[in-house]
Every structure is written in C-alpha cells, then in structure tokens.
C-alpha cells in the first residue's frame, strides 16, 4: 500500500474534463494503493477537497469554467502541503512558467506514458514528506 507518514493511504485527486484520463489514472493508482477520486470539473473537486484533504492533485489545464491554473491557486490556498501536477495537451512555455511561479509541482504534456506520471507522483510524495519532516525538526 502507498502510505504517507501517518500511515493512511495517499489521497489522489484527478480533475480532467475528458473522462478517459481520469478513468485510466484511477485504475492504475488504485491498484498501487492510492485512494483516488476523479472529477471532470474543478468546483465539485474542490468541494470534495474541502471536506477531506488530498495529498496530490492532478489537474488538466484547459477546462471550461475553472481552468487548471485556478485549481492550482485554490488548492495552494486551501492546503499548501498538497502537491499539484498539471497535465495538458497544449504545451506552451509561458503557461508552464506561469504555473511554476504559482507553485505547481510538475507540468506534464499529453500524451504521456503512465510511468512518467507515476514517477512524478512518487517524487511529489517524497517532496511532501521531506518538507513535513523539516518542518517538524524546526519546531
């Protein structure tokens, strides 16, 4: 099982307006022990997040209504510890650098191999845990 320091399963939130993406990711990450929730738009996803925080958020960039950058901003405000990964079919350097300035953990261009995303998610988990343990030491 994939767990974090408090020994509960990692929670992964996936937001993409194209169902194929969530469907595929859910199958893969559930198998390795993540608790996965998928949404096809931002607002209900954030509602769910408000009730029960997620460790990792994977969001599409271009979506009608709330886009990925806004999801990023709201997640960072709600829960700074959560790591946000943006996936997009439109690779534009400006958007990527904008996302990095706003604290995105990684920016991945579709189409991508699942291994790629898996590696990034595992790095994000490690990063999150590292920051936490540093925080604990400082206290």
């Amino acid at each position, binding site marked *: 099982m994939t767990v974090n320091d408090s020994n509960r399963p990692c929670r992964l939130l996936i937001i993409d307006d*194209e169902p*194929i993406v969530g*469907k*595929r990711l859910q199958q893969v990450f559930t*198998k390795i*022990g993540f608790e996965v929730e998928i949404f096809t738009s931002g607002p209900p996803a954030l509602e769910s997040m408000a009730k029960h925080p997620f460790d990792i958020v994977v969001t599409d960039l271009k979506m009608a209504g709330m886009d990925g950058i806004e999801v990023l901003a709201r997640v960072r405000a709600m829960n700074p510890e959560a790591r946000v990964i943006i996936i997009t079919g439109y690779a534009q350097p400006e958007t990527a650098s904008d996302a990095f300035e706003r604290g995105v953990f990684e920016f991945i261009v579709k*189409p*991508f*191999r699942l291994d790629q995303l898996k590696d990034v998610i595992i790095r994000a988990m490690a990063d999150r845990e590292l920051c936490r343990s540093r925080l604990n030491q400082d206290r």
Partner: protein
Amino acid sequence: MSSHLPPIGNGLSSAGELSPLSQTFQQFRRILELNNAVIEKIAGLERALAGEFVFDNIFLQRSVTEISELVREVIYTLNSLAGDRFLELYDRFEAIRANLQDLAGGGQGPYSNFLVLPYSLLNRDLDHLAGGKNASLGEIRTSLALKTPDGFAVTARAYYLFMEENDLFAKLAQLRSQTMPPARYNETLQRLFDEAVVPAPLAEAITAQVNDLLKRTEQTTLLAVRSSAVGEDGERSFAGQFFSQLGVAPTMVLPAYKKVMAARFSLPVLAYLHARTDCREIPMAVGVQQMISARVSGIIYSRDPGPHSRDMLSISAIAGLGAGLAAGREDADRYTVRRRYPFAVVASRIISRPTDQPLPEGAKPLAAQNSGLRRGSAVLPLPVLRTLAEIGLLLEKAFEKPQDIEWAIDQAGQVIILQSRPLALSPLPPPKTAAVAEELRKATVLIDNRGQIAQLGVASGPVVLVTPEDDPAAFPAGAVAVCRVASPQLSPIVRKAAAIITDIGSPTGHLATIAREYRTPALFGTGNASRLLSAGLEVTVDVEERRVYAGIVQGLMDMQAAEAEPYLDTPELRILRRLLRWIAPIHLLDPGAAEFRGSNCRTFHDILRFCHEKAVDALIHLHSSTTGIRNLASRPLLLSVPIKIVAIDLGGGLPPDGGERSVAPEQIRSRPLRALLQGLCNEAVWDREPAPFGLKDLLSGMTRPLTMLTSPPEYAGENLAIVGANYCNLSLRLGYHFNVIDAYLSADPEDNYIYFRFVGGMAAQEKRFRRVTLIAAVLESLFFKVDCQGDLLVAKAKMLAPEHMDAILARLGELIAFTRQLDVRLVDDSTAALFYGRFQAQIRDATAGWPEK
C-alpha cells in the same frame, strides 16, 4: 513540414553535366520520407489505442491534421513526379479528410446521414446510428469471426425522418397528455402508426436493402424485423421491453417496421423509460434480418447469475427457434457449465417432451411415458455445449462484460449468434483498495516492467506455450498463450486466449491489431516470457503494469469486473477507433490487380501504398522512359553473383568515366552501396542450384505480371542504383521479390538512415506472410523499426554511427540474397525458421557491444 533529407550530391553527374534526374529523384526521396513520417504517425495512434500512453482529444485532432498534411504532400509529390497522372487521388483524399475531421471533432461520421446500413458496414462504434443490437451483431460478424444472420439496419436517422414527416412526436405528446384507459391508448397508438406513411426515400432504401439481402442469401424467404434502440443494451437494459416481429414476408417489411416503431411508445415501454423521458431520446433503429431456420436454439449467460456460481456459465436450449424462451414462456433444457476449459458440465436439467414433437437430428428418442411425454433427451450433444461455452467467453471478453447471448443452430449445424447484450447482473461491489494493494504486494511477480502494451487488460489462466504451427482447435479457450514471435498465424489462438504474451513483437504489428479486435489483453516484446513462464502454471497478467503474477490474483480480477464502463468504451477511444478505420487499414494489396487504382483508395494508408508503388514504378522506368535520362550514362556494375545492376551517379558515387563504362565493386565510391554489395555478393549466401517450383506456388503467382514467370529470376525486371558519395538508392527485383533500399551514410550519425522495403515473393500467401514475419524479426534485431502489412514490409533504421551502418547494410545485403534463395527454393517453414534463427544468432554476435537499441 519541410524536408529533412540530407543532400546527396551536387546535382551533377560524374561527367559534370547537370542531371535532369536530380529533381525527379529528390521527389522520389521525398515520397519515401513522407511515407515514413505517416507510418510513424499511424503507429503513434495505434500505440495510443493499445494503451501505451494517456492522450486526449487534442492529440487526436492534432494527429489528424498532421497526417492529412503529410498525405496531401505525398499526392502532390507523386503527381509532380509522374506528370499529374494521378489527380483522382485528391478526390479520395478530400473525402477521407472530411470524414476524419468530422469524427475528430466528435461528429457522427460519414454514415450519419444513411437511412439504412448493411450489417457488413457495422461495428460496435456505430451504435449511435444503428442501435445497440445491430451494432453488436455487426461487430460479431465483421471482427469476431462468428456467424450472425445477414441483414441491415434501419438507422436512428430513419427514425427521426419517419417520426417527423408524420408529425408523430407532436401527435404522441398530445396523446400522452390525455388520461384514458390503456386499451384506448393502445388503440389510438396503433391507428397513429398504421396511418403513418413511411417516407418515400426511406421506403425505397429499405426495399433496395431487402432485395440485396434476398440476393445475398438465396434460401431466405422470411425475415425478422427486430428493435434495436439506441441506448438499448447500453446503460439501460431493455430486455423484452421492445417488440420484434418474426417470420415477416419480404413484401411486409414496411408494415412490420411501423409496428416496431409503435411499440417503442407502448405503455410498458414508456413506464420503463419513465414518463419524463423525451420521445426524441432513445431513437428506435431497427434490424431487418434473414430468419434462421433453427434446429436448436437457446440462451447463454456467460456468467451464471446465481449468487455462488460466478465460475459457472449457464446454457439453455430448446428444439426449434425458441422465440418464447427469451420471454420466459417456454421451458428448456438447462446446463450449468464450468467457465474453464474443458468446460465440464456440473448440472443439467433435461425436460420431458411430448412424443409428437420431433427431436433435432442426432438426439436419441427415449421411451414414452404414460403421461404422453418422452423421457428427457438432451437436445445438445456435449461438444456443442463446449463450443457454446467458448463463444460465451469470447463474447464476454470482446464486450468486456458478462453477456446474455441468444443463439441458434441452423440446418447446416452452424452456430449463429442472434443477439448479444450485457447480462443484467447486479454489479459486484468493488474490492477494497487496501486489500487489493496488500494482495498484490504479497503476490509473486514473474515478469515485471517488460514488453510493450499491445492491448490493455487483466486476465488469468493457465500458461500454454504455443507456436504458429499449432492447431488452434487444440488450444484450450481461456488459457494464457505464451509464444516467441507475435506471428499473424496466431490470430485464431488470440481469439480463444484469455491473454497473450510474446517474446518478440510490437504494438503496431498485425497480431496486436487482432488482439485489439478481440480485446484479448496482450503484452508483446517481453524478450523472454516463453522461458520464464512454464506450461500449465496459473498466472495473472496485468498488461497496464506490464507485469505477470504467479497464481490468480483475485483482487485484480474483481477490480476489473467492477468497472462500470469499460475503459475501451470511453468516448475518446471510440473516436480513435473510428478515426483509425479511415486511416490505417490497407485494402489495395496487390499492385498487379485491376482494382489497384487511385479511385479505389479507401483509407490514407491505401493512398500511401498506391503512391509509393507508383513512385517506385516511375523511378524504375525513369532511365528508359525519360529522354534526358536515357542519355545519361548508366554504368553496369561488375558483380560476382548473377544480378545485373546499372548505376547512375548523382555526384561522387562512381569513379570518373575514363572510357571504361563498367565499374568493379572496389572502384565504387558510394559508401552505402559498397557496404550493401559486400553482403549481397557474399558467396556464402548464394546457391546456384535451379529452384524447384510447385504448382500451387505457380498458381498463386498468376496474378503477378507474367514476365516474372517466364523470365529467369535473375533477369526479371531492372535493377537500378542511383548513388552519391554518401547515398545509395537501389531498386532490386531479385527472384520474385521486389526490394527498395534507400540509405544515407555519412560521418554524422544524425543524418544517417537506412530504409528498406520488401514486397511479394512467389510462394503461397500464407508462406509469404510467414516469411515476412521472420524477416521482420531479423530486421528488428538489426536495429530496424519494422512495419508489416500483408506481405509488404517497410523497415527503417536511423541515427547510427557510420561503422554500424556499414555492418547493418552488409547484413541487409546478405539477408536479401538469402531470402531470395529461400523463397525460390521454397524450403519448408521449419527449415526457413531455422535459417533465420541462425542468421539472427550471427547478427547478435556481430552486434555484441553495440549501444542499446
């Protein structure tokens, strides 16, 4: 896209005159280059379909645009090369491109305006036009190689036409707004539809289809007119709610059609759909089919619905056509059968029959009892039960859900599938994530992170090691097939297998396409699965993770079973499949056939194949047909083997012409040609014995140009090398093959490439496929990327160091000479495989220590 071709000379011949060949030849090379670019893009789409990466609609739209641009340029370039002789290709191109753009944008595609669609055009992704029942039947007959009644669909489009022309939506709304007793409602409904007129274009289309159907199926005298609602068999199960009319005379199809339409609005159906459902939703498509004269018929539940019997399937059977069986009006023989080979019967219940009822052929009559009934006598013999069980598993795999299948056995003893739809089972609760993760952690991993995804999925079963020579009938359905090479001969085994794993093979090969049709989970190119997995071992294959576990990992299986909608039915994948149907298949296979015409191109791949063939033709005949080039010095090469090659120099490829026109190999300055000839002239691979030739092979060669049969193989056709210092293009008719090698070899690996195209061979078709598969395997071990379509093979290696290029070209030369020998001599297949195996082993030794592929 701009060309990335490295320059091959200065446009001057060795004599220093400006070569008119240069421009023409650059166009030829551009066609090769574009051809490769398109093949790579198609491979990218096929890999996406296989499940290798996560993609979205933007990727699909972009791919369509890019491929279209490339194909258009191929047509343009061919026409400038061949004096605008193939302008009809633009029409085909525009038609295909328009279809693709519509589909990529989520449109309904080229058939959306059709009022009727014959079953031969239908597949699972046309359910939005033809309804679920028709679409499934189309898929079953076209892709799954099972028999279904022949017939055609009257589409959802026809439904709207019929309803709107008769103003029926408004009239129905009015009728439904009134309160009245059910009998009066039914009466009014019936009258509305009786009075309605089938619009003329629709009536004509239906009549034409009925006539075609009667012509195709000579014995047919009666038809079945069946409901096939859009959305039926899908998210809702409408089992038994709609109306079908059996035994309809061909002249009575239109009244029957109206009856089926009327029943869409019967009170039980409306109640079932809930009153709130708009009548415009769930349009009613209809299937018009030949009636099957059934000896026996019945139903398969691919998974027994009982609470404790998920490892069982159930089969019921009745003599004759059991129309009442599905509706529960008739009693039948019932069998409970294990879902695993050899499909043991664990329970059966045979009903007694009246003595006056005829028994199906083969069934033994038993003594009559006092009641006037015969004692139980099974209508199905055991082997047929097993066949039905296999069909149940096959359809469950193909539609990714347990199925409720209506079948019949006709007078000829063939099993005909009348209908297959998802079995309405209460969905299993998904297993607990944590428990699955724990089970996976404990499971023994036999293969991890190896191979490529050819078809996603999870499956379990016993390992059976197979070879292309195996009899598919002996393969136990539901087992996991493991083999060395993903050979097309394994298609019938892929059909029966729960999953297939190969050592060698790629997600873009022919067998991968077959695996995707049957939805058999497939993991190709693992390297050594056939050594790691021993026969009889129970395994669970998870293609997504490219992993094989020992034993049955139930959690994984349950997780897959709990999926509400199969991944493969997501909208993006359906769009991708629809797109690929207009892009990837090749219908124009034989350049010698009369149908090999530009106007017959049905897909982009057809266009490519056609253009490529015509471009090669133009090139081959260039120096004999074009005035400017005829005068150009073509110089014979002095070779030690019986091949005649003439060479034309684009600059720096041959020694200056000092009066002696012929050129000895050691004088050749073109580096790639030197390397290639080194292999091609290797005495060790030439055998001068005359080739034995069998009648069957001669007959199979009859469709090819007669010159190939009458002239000795060594001299058939012309062999032309066009060379530069770093470049060589060789068109070679050797034996009964036709090869094109196009290579660039310089000090800079970035620019280097070898393109190899191989087609034909004189042997019977099956052998030619097999040979191509073996050649593909050798080429793959030679750092080539290989694409095979029938007996056409295109391979490309690129960006390799010059010394590796020399070695590969030499081996390629040997392979060409050697293949010619094998094909002409028609050695048996196992010997051929052995030879290729040795060849491959040599290559492994020769390339040991090279960088990783």
